[in-house]
């Protein structure tokens, strides 16, 4: 396998992990967030600092990156997730920008806007693939469990769901924390792949890309988010020469999908349902 192909697959794994996180939050729990790249940044920087400056082995460092993202998500999430829809979306933009600003200005720790070089390239293909497989299994299991149903209930009708005994605020926070973990790990893996990170890599473009991927794949379909990641990552690579049109295309994708087919490509179906369908009719 050529280095280039390997690189693409690693990038696919990384983007897919982040997309799964956003999918849980936006597609399954119905929380529209526009600042999720901030959690990737937190993961990336935490891991970079731990591996480069403190000699921590990459595996625990990646987990710490994820945990850092979770911690921040918890502190921000608990007060703000009580808010519905628009308020939270604005808060998430504000948070994303605030984190980026802090990263750019806290030069002593993060080396500022010019970026953080010299990260050990620990994200090899086996590493990326292993993280992806494990995290994907966990995520698919989760949505196919009482937690997944709880998230969907909170998404579809928060009044009915609280009268079915669901502590909606708590479920939303937990969902945010899990999605932050996934994005944090993805960011940490990205740092180990590029050996270099910069605040501008985690700006609105990245956040929008994550949201576009999930919307495109279908809000409420984890498989759809994976499919969306594959499509958008590959298209981005193929159309590298016209990368200035990327943002325009993401924006157009969001609008067109919402207008023509808001359920995205997969609606709320999963790949597995195609496999299970013939068996289900028998059991009936």
């Amino acid at each position, binding site marked *: 396998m050529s280095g280039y192909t390997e690189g693409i697959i690693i990038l696919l794994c990384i983007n897919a992990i982040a997309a799964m996180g956003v999918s849980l939050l936006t597609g399954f729990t119905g929380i529209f967030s526009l600042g999720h790249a901030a959690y990737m940044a937190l993961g990336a920087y935490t891991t970079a600092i731990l591996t480069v400056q403190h000699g921590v082995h990459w595996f625990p460092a990646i987990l710490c990156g994820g945990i850092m993202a979770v911690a921040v998500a918890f502190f921000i999430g608990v007060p703000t997730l009580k808010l519905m829809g628009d308020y939270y979306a604005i808060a998430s933009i504000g948070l994303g920008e605030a984190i980026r600003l802090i990263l750019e200005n806290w030069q002593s720790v993060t080396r500022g806007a010019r970026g953080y070089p010299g990260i050990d390239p620990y994200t090899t293909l086996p590493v990326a693939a292993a993280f992806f497989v494990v995290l994907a299994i966990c995520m698919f299991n989760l949505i196919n*469990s009482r937690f997944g149903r709880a998230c969907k209930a909170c998404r579809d*009708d928060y*009044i009915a*769901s*609280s*009268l079915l005994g669901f502590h*909606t605020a708590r479920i939303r926070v937990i969902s945010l924390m899990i999605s932050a973990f996934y994005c944090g790990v993805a960011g940490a893996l990205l740092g180990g792949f590029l050996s270099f990170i910069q605040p501008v890599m985690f700006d609105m473009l990245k956040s929008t890309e994550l949201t576009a991927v999930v919307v495109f794949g279908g809000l409420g379909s984890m498989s759809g988010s994976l499919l969306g990641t594959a499509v958008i990552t590959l298209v981005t690579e193929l159309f590298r020469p016209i990368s200035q049109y990327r943002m325009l295309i993401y924006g157009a994708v969001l609008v067109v999908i919402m207008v023509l087919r808001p359920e995205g490509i997969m609606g709320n179906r999963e790949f597995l349902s195609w496999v299970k369908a013939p068996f289900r009719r028998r059991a009936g």
Partner: protein
Amino acid sequence: MGEGSFPEAGRMSAFFELSGVTKNFGGVQAVSKMAFSIARGELAGLMGPNGAGKTTIFNLVTGVYDLDEGQIFFKEEDLARLKTYQVTGRGIARTFQNLRLFQRSTVLENVMTAAQHHVPYSFAEGMTHLGRWRSGEKKIREKSMALLERVGLADRAEQAAGTLPYGFQRRLEIARALALDPELLLLDEPAAGMNAEEVSSLNVLISEIHRDFSLTILVIEHHMDLVMEICPHIICMNFGAKIAEGTPDEIQNHPEVLKAYLGEEEVE
């Protein structure tokens, strides 16, 4: 007021009791000094013309609104201190006047979402599908299917809830509420939008589940047919206050009730 053999409001050992319940919205008094008492195992009806404040009572009981005055007791616990999501844990379930199904989910999933309440397994088990996940999911699914059979929706289990005919959606909401294993079931206008035939079969269903699940049921309806036929204990309200309470016969001939429903001029 013909309270007859019904528990007097104020007796502490009543199963479910409101006393002095008042709720204002801005300048409007939606509920005014409402008081009634329901014994365990009763099938009672809450009647009144539109806007009488019936749904507001349900909202007050389930914590959607806060009480301005008064108290609500269930099994001798004051419900006012509870948050909405804690109410289910105490054994109360409700359906909604405007239907609040999870439209995008399947019929089965709607019920499973409620049934899972009493089948706990941990987050870690959910994430790894080990431990109690498999047995838990099986139990949830079986319980839900059984309830769907009960309300006659088993063959539509995999259909999206939002695509069901209206009458079936109402049955689904009842099944979902039953999945919570409640002791007190609050039905908010379960017959709304139904024709006479559907109301009849709904009456049968409610009577059956009252008996089979040993439930205490309070039904809101402004449809006379349903309430009169199956509820031996009826409370009638108008403009937020109780105007009559008693058996169907007593209510039927009560002047205040006739006035509320037919208007002043119609009463001889």
